[in-house]
């Protein structure tokens, strides 16, 4: 504990600058600011052009999901959960559905498991595509954003074809998936993947071989290996420090054990390294989806459930987590045997990255880099506030 205390500086123990000295400027970045991800705000104390201290302020998107779920039926909650993290609704759906199935002892058919895995990988790809646009845009490279967000739109078209929904899919339901894939879906999927792969090559050429992007991103927001455990960093931010920690491999949920992939790690854990790692993960997702299309089994897609209006789930508690684009996404569900959940806790990876790690990393950074640093941590405020 003594050894690791050095890496934990609680806000109270920080050297807080003397604001009365007139040497510093208190500046709010956000919520009304294009350089902020989502809707949160940073209270920056700047000296000259560099940040001295930072306080994150979240809660602008607080809807009280966890309270609302306690007053709705198990199945009524289902349209609610996917609204928690807007860019990646499917992880909420999967975690919630898996927790319910585990508590209720429902076995889902094999094909639905594979379809779930495919959906999760597709949304990972879509979210990463949106992220890389944000990362380039935070450094002022609008062209990349224009390309990649359009590529994301093609993935969303696939989702629309699959589930009828563009942003909120509600495809992974307890007991399986809502519907089987439509005709020619896999063909469209593979074609889209080819287009996206080609576009990713262009992006790599324009963005990652760009001297200006290197100058901006290299050395920005370096995360040492020791922070990973002390700050609970997960996902690409953790893998960028060189730790091969991927829940898809560790937990082996869904169909991932049957798929052939290795956790991608990177040695330089600054903004540039994280960006490279996420680009590699995009290629990995494309590869995984292709594998799944080949190995996709046939059969039923849904398990018969009792009448959802009277569905009582036996008392118990469980914690189901999955590897989303930002790290460990988890649902902690408690049932007291009634037809409504007793407590649902959503564990979003941004909870750590956007608050503690951000406050720790942003000190000493140039103001112009705050937006880039924030995006390079890949934070989504909605899952902090729920």
């Amino acid at each position, binding site marked *: 504990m003594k050894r690791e205390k050095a890496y934990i500086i609680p806000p109270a123990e920080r050297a807080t600058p003397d604001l009365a000295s007139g040497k510093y400027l208190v500046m709010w970045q956000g919520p009304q600011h294009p350089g902020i991800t989502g809707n949160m705000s940073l209270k920056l104390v700047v000296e000259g052009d560099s940040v001295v201290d930072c306080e994150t302020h979240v809660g602008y998107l607080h809807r009280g999901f966890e309270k609302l779920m306690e007053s709705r039926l198990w199945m009524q909650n289902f349209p609610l959960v996917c609204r928690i993290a807007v860019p990646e609704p499917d992880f909420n759906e999967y975690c919630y559905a898996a927790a319910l199935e585990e508590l209720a002892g429902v076995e889902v058919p094999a094909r639905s498991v594979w379809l779930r895995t495919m959906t999760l990988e597709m949304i990972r790809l879509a979210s990463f595509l949106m992220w890389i646009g944000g990362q380039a845009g935070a450094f002022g490279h609008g062209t990349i954003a224009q390309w990649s967000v359009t590529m994301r739109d093609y993935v969303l078209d696939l989702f629309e074809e699959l589930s009828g929904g563009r942003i909120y899919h509600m495809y992974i339901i307890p007991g399986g998936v809502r519907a089987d894939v439509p005709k020619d879906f896999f063909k469209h999927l593979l074609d889209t993947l080819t287009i996206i792969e080609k576009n990713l090559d262009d992006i790599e050429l324009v963005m990652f071989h760009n001297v200006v992007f290197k100058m901006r991103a290299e050395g920005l927001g370096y995360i040492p290996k020791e922070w990973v455990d002390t700050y609970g960093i997960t996902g690409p931010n953790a893998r960028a420090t060189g730790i091969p920690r991927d829940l898809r491999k560790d*937990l082996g949920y869904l169909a991932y054990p049957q798929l052939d992939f290795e956790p991608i790690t990177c040695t330089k854990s600054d903004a540039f390294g994280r960006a490279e790692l996420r680009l590699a993960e995009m290629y990995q997702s494309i590869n995984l989806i292709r594998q799944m299309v080949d190995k996709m089994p046939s059969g039923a897609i849904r398990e018969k459930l009792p009448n959802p209006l009277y569905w009582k789930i036996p008392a118990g508690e*469980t914690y189901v987590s999955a590897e989303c684009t930002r790290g460990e996404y988890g649902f902690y569900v408690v049932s007291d045997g009634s037809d409504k959940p007793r407590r649902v806790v959503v564990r979003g990876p941004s909870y750590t990255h956007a608050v503690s790690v951000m406050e720790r990393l942003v000190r000493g950074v140039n103001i112009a880099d705050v937006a880039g640093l924030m995006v390079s941590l890949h934070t989504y405020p909605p899952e902090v506030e729920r």
Partner: protein
Amino acid sequence: MNELATELTRRYGARDWRDQRKDLSSVVVDALRIRDVLAWLKDSGGYRHLSFASAVDNIERNAFTLVYTLRNHDLGHSLMVHCDIDRSNPTVDSIHLLWGQAWTYQREMKEWFGIDFPGSPRVDEEFVLEGWQGPPMMRRDFDSRKYSDETYAERPGRVTSDPATHMKSKMYPEAVP
């Protein structure tokens, strides 16, 4: 896992070890020893990753059940450590020195449940709410719908019906008188 259970029981009097899955177990300890248990699990037990910390309001037992979920990435095993605290006087030791993000969870619990963590940084500040004057809203006895109806103006014309009776009337009209 069993040797860990016995070790925890021997050292800290942990009880009710339960294996939920092969990679998820839960255990209950006393609230007074929660920080020692977590510190030991972190430094000696290999459970170095704090997934989340939250609370469940067991109003029937007049207790808050705190849950700290730790993960041992070497063993690939997660452990949920529970402890019950008195609902009328909720106070727990702060663990903000064990994990760098713990103070955020504690701030959240302080605001949402009214659980106090003495010494935790910025624990008394507002976390997600602003100008909130009602009771801690995640407690079971706080009625969100009532508060919302009283506070926020509603657009006329919205009907809310009980799903069971509504679906009955839609699907089996003859069954409903």
